[in-house]
């Protein structure tokens, strides 16, 4: 294990691991809802691969969180036994699936941020963080390749696919700003060299989005308004229902082994 940097407090590092792990947990959950219901078999299989990667990453991030916290909680107990207010994911990832275009647009907007974040984390001062980021980064590079290509193709496809993708972008855009907003936890992480300042990821993300939307013939909204709250546990109504599904068995039969 990398020496737990004396300069960063355990609570902030724990918080950071939850943010990473809750993002992948909730997005993986959403994506897994498509299994058996996608527009074509090839996509059904591809999307399940994305969800499987995200679940695997959740196990790593929340596992690390439990280790940092040091109170004996595991990835499973963190995933299955916290209530909504203790979740730290971005609001973007809990947005409902909508049509397949909304799901792909949400994936693309997240993947573009996720990959840059993981690349930065590969240089983390905490070797455990760097290690997870390196493994996850290889998977997410592929997620981004897929999602960006599909956004381009559907944006520049038929009139209907163009209309749906533009609607998806307009709908999700106000949930993207939260990715770049920093709070005290982010400041502590940046200070200790564990994670990048979220704002520093914005220019490249914007460039990627601009390039892809240009090819997709889609218009990036000029609204700068951001919904926020996920990172500190103030969520949309959707998260409660996700957790009701996700946590049902663990809550209904406390202590049972599965």
């Amino acid at each position, binding site marked *: 294990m990398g020496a737990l940097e004396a300069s960063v407090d355990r609570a902030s590092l724990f918080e950071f691991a939850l943010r990473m792990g809750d993002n992948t947990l909730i997005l993986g959950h959403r994506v897994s809802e498509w299994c058996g219901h996608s527009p074509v078999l090839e996509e059904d299989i*591809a999307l399940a691969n994305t969800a499987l990667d995200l679940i695997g990453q959740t196990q790593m991030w929340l596992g690390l969180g439990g280790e940092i916290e040091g109170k004996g909680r595991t990835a499973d107990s963190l995933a299955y036994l916290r209530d909504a207010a203790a979740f730290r994911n971005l609001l973007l990832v809990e947005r409902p699936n909508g049509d397949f275009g909304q799901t792909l647009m949400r994936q693309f907007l997240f993947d573009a941020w996720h990959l840059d974040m993981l690349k930065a984390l590969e240089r983390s001062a905490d070797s455990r963080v760097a290690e997870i980021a390196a493994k996850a980064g290889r998977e997410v590079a592929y997620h981004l390749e*897929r999602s960006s290509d599909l956004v381009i193709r559907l944006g520049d496809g038929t009139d209907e696919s163009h209309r749906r993708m533009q609607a998806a972008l307009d709908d999700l855009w106000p949930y993207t700003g939260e990715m770049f907003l920093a709070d005290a936890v982010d400041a502590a992480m940046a200070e200790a060299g564990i994670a990048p300042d979220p704002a520093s990821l914005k220019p490249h993300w914007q460039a990627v989005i601009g390039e892809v939307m240009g090819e997709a013939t889609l218009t990036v909204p000029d609204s700068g308004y951001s919904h926020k709250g996920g990172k500190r546990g103030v969520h949309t109504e959707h998260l409660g229902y996700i957790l009701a599904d996700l946590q049902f068995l663990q809550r209904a039969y406390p202590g049972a082994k599965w």
Partner: protein
Amino acid sequence: MSSQWPLWEIFIRGQHGLNHRHVGSLHAPDAEMAIRNARDVYTRRNEGVSIWVVKSADITASSPSDKGPLFEPSNSKVYRHPTFFDIPEEVGHM
């Protein structure tokens, strides 16, 4: 029905340096997507493979008599392998 994606034949070279071999087919709108779909469908994203795709319609075949292809599942998803699950001997073969 007119919008059905064309059928592609998929050939994969694994990590052991053998020739590309036919593993099956799938549908995709163009070659680039056929390659990506092949990666997701036929390799479950095992690293280090090379994939060829050919439109089925472009293949000229003699009377075929190939032997069946085998398949190496991805190594990173251990639970896909039957041996991941311990089944007691008393239960018998599964």
